């Protein structure tokens, strides 16, 4: 209580103007301190608020952790100096780009050069192949990307853990470690039948945080096997991210090519929009319903708490405490009760779900509880405490003095 007094004295400092405000503040802190101290005697309702808020926040944070995990994974290998070049009017990677067009892109300025002085332009051709999931045995389509060998310059995050890069023109594949983990038949040395011919897996690599299975082979070998003569997409590494606008204009200005350039960031964001919006919608849908339930519980518990204090409240009113102060103190108490709930909920979400891997809608990623999510959880909890506190606070302020004292 001494610290409370000190605090209220501190607030009362600036002269006579704030004497009234200082008095209200003193009343407010005194009331709050008494209220909180009294909670220990009957922990039921207070605990109900804490548990209700903890469950609501825990669920919200755990569900949002899916979205943040997915976003982190999607964006993990995105860099501003990387550009996707696609056919006009087609989705990136689903176009058909002739060899002449690809050669024309290679001659454009602003492109970074590899150590041999050649422009870093990766030509790609995508073929869906069969993957058999470990455990369930389910067969799903996974993309086999035919790429030019300069992919290692374009994606420096590729680090070979076993074996080596494929050799140009050979029927060889390299796969990311995720593939070996998720699908069977992707161990080093395994042979996969593609168009009736065996393709040997010669290397396994890691790609930072990317959780998708990446399978790479030589683009020319793949295109000749599938008798294709157009690429499905190009990726370009710029000298610097600042060159993007100039490069984009250069692609547009070339009348010979029907292509457009887009930042890798934009393409990845667009591709992941459907997944992200489904995850966000589900999180906030479930989170809102839980919060409504939690708020209803908080209202009920606060009513119970206020009712058990009728005599004290009436006494305070009798000795000159203002209704406004009582409202403010009750609201504050409600929010203070919600706060530990939020922290417990966020902690539970972190303990049980952070780092857990989920694979909804064919994507695999790890749930991630970030400080941002904890902040969202705390905001929701304070909101629940505030909204839940309004009606009980009004009742507390309206306790009829004489009736309450007589009933006691």
């Amino acid at each position, binding site marked *: 209580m001494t610290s409370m007094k000190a605090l209220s004295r501190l607030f009362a400092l600036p002269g006579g103007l704030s004497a009234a405000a200082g008095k209200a503040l003193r009343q407010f802190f005194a009331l709050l301190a008494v209220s909180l101290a009294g909670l220990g005697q009957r922990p039921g309702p207070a605990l109900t608020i804490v548990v209700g808020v903890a469950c609501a926040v825990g669920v919200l944070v755990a569900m949002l952790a899916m979205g943040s995990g997915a976003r982190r994974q999607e964006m993990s290998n995105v860099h501003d100096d990387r550009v996707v070049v696609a056919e006009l009017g087609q989705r990136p990677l689903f176009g058909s780009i002739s060899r002449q067009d690809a050669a024309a892109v290679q001659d454009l300025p602003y492109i970074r050069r590899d150590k041999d002085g050649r422009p870093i332009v990766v030509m790609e051709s995508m073929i869906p192949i069969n993957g058999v999931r470990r455990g369930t045995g*389910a067969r799903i389509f996974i993309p086999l990307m035919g790429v030019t060998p300069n992919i290692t310059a374009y994606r420096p995050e590729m680090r070979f853990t076993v074996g080596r890069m494929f050799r140009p023109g050979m029927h060889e594949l390299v796969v990311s470690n995720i593939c070996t983990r998720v699908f069977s038949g992707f161990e080093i040395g395994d042979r996969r039948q593609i168009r009736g011919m065996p393709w040997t897996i010669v290397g396994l690599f890691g790609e930072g945080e990317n959780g998708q299975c990446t399978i790479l082979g030589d683009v020319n070998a793949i295109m000749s096997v599938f008798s294709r003569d157009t690429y499905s997409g190009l990726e370009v590494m710029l000298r610097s991210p600042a060159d993007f606008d100039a490069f984009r204009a250069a692609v547009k200005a070339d009348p010979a090519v029907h292509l457009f350039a887009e930042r890798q960031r934009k393409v990845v964001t667009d591709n992941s929009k459907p997944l992200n919006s489904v995850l966000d919608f589900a999180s906030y849908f479930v989170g809102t319903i839980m919060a409504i339930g939690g708020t209803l519980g908080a209202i009920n518990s606060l009513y119970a708490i206020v009712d058990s204090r009728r005599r004290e409240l009436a006494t305070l009113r009798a000795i000159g405490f203002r209704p406004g102060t009582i409202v403010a103190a009750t609201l504050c108490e409600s929010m203070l009760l919600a706060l530990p709930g939020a922290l417990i909920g966020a902690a539970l979400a972190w303990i049980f*779900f952070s780092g857990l891997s989920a694979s909804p809608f064919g994507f695999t990623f790890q749930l991630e509880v970030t400080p941002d999510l904890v902040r969202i959880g705390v905001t929701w909890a304070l909101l629940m405490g505030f909204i839940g506190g309004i009606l009980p606070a009004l009742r507390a302020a309206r306790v009829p003095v004489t009736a309450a004292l007589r009933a006691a």
Partner: protein
Amino acid sequence: MKYLPLVWSGIWRKPGRSILIFLQVAVAFTLFGVLQGLKTGVDHAIAAARADLLIVHSRLGFGVPLTLGMLEQIRSVPGVEEAIPVELSLGTYQKPTQQVGLVAIRPDKGWLSAFTYSISPAYVKAFLATRTGVLVREELAEKYGWKVGDRIPLRTGLPQRNGSSVWTFDVVGTFTDSDIGGGNSNVLINYDYLNEGRASGKDIVNHFNVKIADPKAAAAMSDAIDARFANSPNETRSESIREMAQESLQSIGDLEFLIRAVVTAVLAALLFATATMMMQSVRERTAEIAVLKTVGFTNHAVFALTLAESAIVCVAAGGAGLAVATLAFPYASKFIHGLSMPWIIVSVGLASALAVALVSAALPAALAARLQVATALAGR
């Protein structure tokens, strides 16, 4: 039964509190219903999908064409009962936004068993007899007001030999589709009419529908068919309708652990809230309970009355919540059609509501039953 008014007045002793508890329980069971309903509904939908119906399409993807010549090879695989060629095309009706899926079928003998459609026999007969005939999905016929006898022009991506890419069909009937993956705006047409009328791409098919004798052999049959075409220019991939349903709905199954966590959290919070409220309620009524006992209510009766009060509120609220969930379900599951609220979830939900009520009221009810009349009234 004669104690019902007593329980009833107990519930309305503090109307605000009872209404809040009611709402809280109802909200919780709305969430329970939607989440569990989604999970169980998906399981049911997968189990109901036919395992004896295989779709044989190109290994390279769904849009890559196969040839009609493969039909005899598929039919010669032991265990295959029917194999029907199917070609797909996208058409539009009047406006570019009004898309219609054209499913061209060669209605060979026994073709209906290789599809998930239900068509009345009269319509089937008319379809077989009319080369330009079209069977329209009921939803679509309703949407555009098409009736039997109407002639409908559809603009497609397939030019006819006369250069026009508008095809005219005679509506001969309607059909329904039990497949959850089946498009809502599909129409069935005769493959031969399409194949002979189109300017290019003769004898190309999109996939084959294959009915097999033994649904349990679906995986082995898929492999047997795919083996026939291995190393050929038209490598195939066969999958049963059930396998496809599983694949497309797996996403929700993968979220099972999260659904379970949410439902656990909901029920835990609820249990706690109702328990505290019942405790509060019993404590406030010390004097009343003592009076009840004085006038002859046994400890057991008091125990039962307290439980009944909690049970009535919770089960009624649970029922209300599940009703809301059932009504809201078609919206929540909009992206998967044919999903309906499984009744088992409603029963499980009501049972859970009762369980929450009984568990949370057990301690307060025991306190009420053990109350000593003298002590309780002494304070007055």
